């Protein structure tokens, strides 16, 4: 309930945040929305000696589409995705995702960057970013580097390839082409919960309706966010129909590594990966072909 003691510093700019990270090293943790970190502190499951509050860096809150890329500032609040007409109209998969993060009040402070950088396989955005083939921008003392999302998550729980003196500053998503569409389906026990399982799918079709790109990401069915590569591969060059969708869902389910816990038995979760992948692909197809 009551956290342990820590020192608190405010960073008013990205360079300042990085300088503080360099100065305090392992002792320090970035405080963004805090909706994941503060509960950990309150249960004393994490006890950083220093918190660096980056919430004042207003420059990091933006949603902009330029030059064929959607740029989302890392500090953008989930609530901003919820209410953005750009997102709703052109990137509905992101609205599917943001609107399932925790609850609406938490979403006023929870950030997209935090949801990704916290690297909790139970968080919702990682699967969607994997499906979208997103990139993240990491800013450190020597400048920025762009990291493909597949390389951002390692194979260790709660670990990313961010260096200790870097912060995530931007997420980049390719703008949709004419025949592309995606969806995120999250099965939860109740509103506010983490996923029993979640599936994000994104497809791009050519003029004949064959798949030229397929991205499939899975939430909370393994130690890390899962990219269902075999399932993706199975769709490329195929028409997107019941048969190919079911086959891809089979492969996605096979890629899951769920544990049995209070959110259900592993067998159930695996089956739900199948069900949610089917539903997400059907919706992706509908959105790609103008059905929605």
């Amino acid at each position: 309930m009551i956290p342990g003691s820590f020192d608190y510093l405010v960073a008013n700019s990205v360079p300042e945040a990085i300088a503080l990270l360099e100065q305090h090293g392992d002792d320090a943790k970035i405080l963004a929305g805090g909706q994941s970190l503060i509960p950990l502190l309150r249960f004393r499951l994490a006890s950083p000696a220093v918190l660096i509050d980056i919430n004042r860096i207003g420059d990091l809150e933006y949603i902009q589409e330029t030059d064929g890329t959607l740029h989302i500032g890392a500090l953008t609040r989930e609530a901003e995705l919820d209410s953005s007409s750009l997102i709703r109209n052109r990137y509905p998969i992101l609205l599917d995702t943001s609107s399932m993060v925790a609850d609406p009040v938490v979403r006023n402070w929870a950030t997209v960057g935090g949801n990704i950088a916290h690297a909790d396989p139970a968080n919702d955005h990682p699967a969607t970013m994997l499906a979208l083939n997103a990139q993240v921008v990491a800013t450190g003392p020597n400048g920025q580097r762009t990291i493909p999302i597949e390389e951002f998550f390692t194979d260790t729980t709660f670990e990313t390839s961010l260096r200790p003196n870097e912060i995530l500053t931007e997420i980049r998503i390719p703008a949709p082409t004419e025949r592309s569409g995606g969806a995120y389906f999250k099965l939860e026990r109740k509103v506010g919960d983490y996923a029993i399982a979640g599936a994000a799918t994104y497809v791009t079709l050519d003029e004949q309706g064959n798949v030229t790109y397929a991205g499939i990401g899975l939430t909370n069915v393994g130690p890390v966010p899962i990219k269902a590569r075999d399932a993706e591969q199975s769709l490329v060059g195929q028409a997107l129909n019941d048969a190919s969708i079911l086959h891809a869902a089979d492969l996605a389910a096979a890629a899951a590594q769920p544990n049995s816990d209070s959110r259900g038995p592993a067998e159930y979760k695996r089956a739900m990966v199948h069900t949610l992948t089917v539903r997400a692909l059907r919706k992706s197809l509908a959105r790609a072909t103008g059905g929605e």
Partner: protein
Amino acid sequence: MSIHHIRVTINGTDYEGDVDSRMLLVHWIRDGLRLTGTHIGCDTTSCGACTILVDGKATKSCTMFAVQANGREIMTVEGLEQNDKLHPLQEGFHEEHALQCGYCTPGMMMTSLALLRNNPNPTEHEIRVGISGNLCRCTGYVNIVKAVQYAAEKMRAAEQVPVNAGEGGE
């Protein structure tokens, strides 16, 4: 210990004080400033009894440190009544019997206030989505929805906001 001097405006009044960095905002408001209308109901950011507005955003004040509120504007339930006049939400909760034990009520009203400011004409579904981060054990939510609808109508009438204003918008 890491002590910080903070200045916060709450319900239009300026407050300041020295707080340990680990002091939760809800504890500072309740114990430090004796604004006890905001309540604590859980320890996992689940129940929303502690909801206040911080810079206009509904915020679970148990999941924010007091130091983070430095320089910000806060509104709590105590700020709803102005010049002896109840806010339409307070009226609505009373008229529609949307409270029983009263413990979740302040947080529920603050969330509803933010909801209505963003969406002046919400449907029942939109209200239910909007308050889904606030738990109530007593009312079963039916009358809370009615109370928010009551307030929405009153606020729209007062503002003379066109009926469609709630749709879309960034």
